């Protein structure tokens, strides 16, 4: 990942942050746009979670990783504290690999 890419992402991100504080009282954001942004973020996160859980490059990643992620997802849905969720993902996957599951 080149430094330029990081700087560009940082600049874009910072401009998103700065628009509101600079233009307060002059511009307001449509509620529909706000909801769309939030939905787009959720869609991206879930899509990225799905691809990074299931795929390795262009191929299937094997069963151990998605199994760990599935357990973590179920725990997260049950409102289990964050550290437990992350540890569960790693432990389930590591144990499955220890047991010979790829």
């Amino acid at each position: 990942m080149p430094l330029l890419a990081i700087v560009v992402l940082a600049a874009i991100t910072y401009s998103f942050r700065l628009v509101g504080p600079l233009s307060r009282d002059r511009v307001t954001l449509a509620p529909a746009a706000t909801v769309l942004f939030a939905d787009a973020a959720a869609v991206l996160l879930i899509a990225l979670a799905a691809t990074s859980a299931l795929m390795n490059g262009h191929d299937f990643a094997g069963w151990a990783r998605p199994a760990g992620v599935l357990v973590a997802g179920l725990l997260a849905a049950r409102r289990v504290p964050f550290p437990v969720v992350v540890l569960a993902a790693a432990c389930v996957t590591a144990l499955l690999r220890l047991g010979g599951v790829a």
Partner: protein
Amino acid sequence: MSPLWRTAGLARAAEPGSTSRRGSTLVRDVALVCLADGLVGVSFGATTVAGHLHWWVPVAMSLLVFAGGSQFAAVGVVLAGGSPVAAVAAGAVLNTRLLPYGFAVADVVGPPERADLDAGAQASGAEVQVRARPVRSGWLIRALGAQVITDESTAFALRQTDPARRRAAFWGCGLALFVVWNVSVLLGVLAGSLVRNTNAFGLDATFPAVLIALALPALAERRTRVSAGTGAVIAVALTPVLPAGLPVLAALAGLVTGWRPRRRTTERAASPLAARRAGNRADSSIDSLTGER
């Protein structure tokens, strides 16, 4: 950073119900969020160097971008073999939510308002002195404040009704997170470079797990769930055939499935959150992100 840490325990702890002992509750809640973010930071640093990226990549990103979800997204795209352009695009789309946040906390990001100061100055009779200061250093404070706009600092600010408390919550949470996040990423980089085979420890499973934990609270509404589910199917189906990075961006097409049918009528009436959204500005989307149902 990211929608986080809006996971269960934290979101519960940060609920606004506790009006007594507000100050100490705020400090405790901020500390809890910092702890959770610290874990994510360690995981970010470790996964990044485990994927054979240079040590300065996660460090520079955390300092300059300072938005956890997008950092994970961008690095995830690169680790999957995607181009830097795709990585930046994914991170940028994820960070669009900071735009409404900026509007929501605009009043506390900069120095105290001229109107507030004038009122104070009239009361104390020190009009000229009080006025001169904020104008000169105002842009600097605002520039710094903008950088610490995150899911968490915004959520904490919006939970406070009193302007002074809003300001304290925003700045306290924002600055604490900035320090904790960068230190923990650095620790993660160190840890990640010490461990040889990170896959044996299941570290590769923590990345998608973090993303799911981040996204879950935002999936309170059916519309969002449908969009996200469709997007995930699209992304996974396209991964074998498209260059890395593009499938995740293609998932945005899933938004159409959630948005087209009946977005105004039934859902808005059915869900209290949606009903609030109708009248409210940016605040409500942050509620959904911070795990309030």
